Each structure stands twice: as structure tokens, then as C-alpha cells.
């Protein structure tokens, strides 16, 4: 189960600053931990998060092993035109989750 939840207003006024909260379901295994028998648990993390607004990148984050499981990323953008925001998380073990959220700008 790879799930991501995006919370943002469905509509906004032109020029308004909108807050976007994203929560991705991921264990963020650091790659430094060992099992009880001493074997290294391979790293399994999200490497990159991007948000594009009608094809234009508005936010990007690189994620690292020290980041907690189920990372919450919150940021803002300016509502400039109606359309859709595309959120993408990519990581180890060909992890890819894409979420699309429409926005109506008046």
C-alpha cells in the first residue's frame, strides 16, 4: 500500500497564497539499521519530491536518510491560474507515487 494524501483548497482567488500539505506513506528505512541477527537492512527512502503547477515546477525537495517515516511536507504557492497541481514522490526500489489535485482560480 503506497498512499499519499494531499490537502489544499480546491479554489482560490487569483494571487492568493495557498497552503499545501502532503503526507506520504513510507517507512523511510535509513540503511544504517541492522536486524537482530546483524544483517544490514537495505536503505529504502523517498529521494525526491516535486510539485508542478500546470507543468511548471513550484516546489522540490530532496529527502535523506535522517527524515522520519511518513514524511509530511508543507509549503505554499501563489494561485495564478486554474488547472492542476501534480505531486510526485520518487525513491529507492522504484518507488513512485503521483497525486493530482485540481484548483480553480477566480
Amino acid at each position, binding site marked *: *500500500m503506497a*498512499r499519499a*494524501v494531499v*490537502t489544499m483548497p480546491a479554489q482560490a482567488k487569483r494571487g492568493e497564497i495557498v497552503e499545501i*500539505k502532503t*503526507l506520504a*506513506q513510507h*517507512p*523511510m528505512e535509513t540503511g544504517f539499521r541492522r536486524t537482530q541477527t546483524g544483517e544490514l537492512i537495505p536503505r529504502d527512502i523517498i529521494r525526491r519530491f516535486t510539485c508542478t503547477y500546470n507543468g511548471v515546477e513550484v516546489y522540490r525537495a530532496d529527502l535523506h536518510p535522517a527524515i*522520519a*517515516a*511518513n514524511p*509530511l511536507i*508543507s509549503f505554499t504557492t501563489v494561485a495564478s491560474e486554474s488547472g492542476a497541481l501534480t505531486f510526485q514522490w520518487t525513491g529507492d526500489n522504484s518507488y513512485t507515487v503521483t497525486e493530482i489535485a485540481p484548483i480553480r482560480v477566480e
Partner: protein
Amino acid sequence: MSLRFLSAALACLVCTSARAGEIPPDQRRSGYELMSRETRAIQDDDTTNPGMLWVLDGEALWNRKAGTADRACAACHGDARTSMKGVAARYPAFDAALGRPVNLEQRINFCRTGRQKAPPLAFESRELLALTAYVARQSRDLPINIAIDARNKPFLDAGSEAFHRRQGQLNLACSQCHDDNWGKRLAGSLIPQAHPTGYPLYRLEWQGLGSLERRLRNCLIGIRAEPHAYGAPEFVDLELYLMWRANGMKVETPAVRP
């Protein structure tokens, strides 16, 4: 003879002093109130509460057909938002067929094996935690309501006895920390009153969701006692006592704790 009397009197003294440490109802505090402002904010907002990821998974499982009966939970119980409202606040509840109380996880598994004809879900598996969290979420903000009658009284007493019994290599009883010394610090951490108001909950230390039994196993290992297996009757008795002790407090599932 006199020695035996003395030890009996001493045992009685220990027993009464332990009972005297019980928390008066107006002084009961959920672990929520002892948390930092930041951790409380994570719990309060469903869009930031990572426990909601399990609740959403649970909702999907609730509506998914399972087992040879090919029935989903929703086929019998309908919309969980109405049918499961307040259910978690009553658990562990007495099961007449089994003749003893069962917790919510066990009830879900009985439904799976009995009605859905599906294999039971493993304790602490992602699926069982998700379903439990989804069911318990429907009782959020409702008061815990454990009714004690003649049938489950012996199990409540057994749980109470376990709570007040010294055990493990450190020879500590649950009550010594959670009744007598709550609000003080054990190393860097605040000692809470041990009210199970938000289970299954997201513990930052676990980086995931876990059940009350996982938490109890942590505590037992902490006092160097041998932890019971998941689903053990001893655990369910203790859960019954803890939930009864928290009667009237609000359900917070899925809670967030440090």
C-alpha cells in the same frame, strides 16, 4: 503463626497503599495533555496526523471482499461511520461464546474467521492495525464506556491485580509509575497516567502505528519482565482494567504520542 500474621498484615498494608495511589477522577490526564505543543498539533490535524494513513487503509479494507464467504465488513455492518460509532469505547467487551473479554483486534479476527471465512490477520500486521484504527476512529471524541457486570468482573479484578503486582527483575508494578509518580520524569520522558485513550496510535518512537499490547510489551520489557504473547488473556484483562480506569475519558484514535 505470628510471622504469618505479620506477613499477611504487611501484604495488606502494601495492597492498601497501592490502592490509595489511585488517581482521583478530576486529576486524570490523557497522555495528550503531557505532550509538547508540536506533537499535539500533529494529532489534532487530520491532514498531518500520520495515523490517518492507516485509517484510510482501514476504510479500503472495510469495503474489500475477503475470504471464501466473499463478503466485505461493509456487507454486514454497512457504513462504519454509523454502525461502528462508539464500539471501540466499549472494548474489551465480554464474549459470551468464549466466556471472557476480547479486545477489538480479536473481535475483528473472529469476524474474519467466523463470518468471512478468511484466515485471521496477524497481530500488529498492517492490515489488522488499519482495520482496528478505522473502527476505533469512528468513536473519536466519545467517552470510554466500559460497563462492569458479574460476567466480566473477575477479569477486571485480574487486570487490576496485574496492574498493582510487582513483577520483573526491577520488581516494579505498573501502578508505581503510573499511579504514584505520573507527571514526574523517567530519564527525559514524562511519566503519563497510562490511559489507553488513543489506541491504535502513532508513536513517533515506533515511526508507525501500534496497538496497546505492543505498548504493554514495551513496558514489560522495560521492567525486565517477560512480556506476554499478543492476544494473551493476561493482556486482555489488563486492557480491560486500563480502559475501565479511563472510563469517561475521550477516545482519541488515532492518537500521536512521542
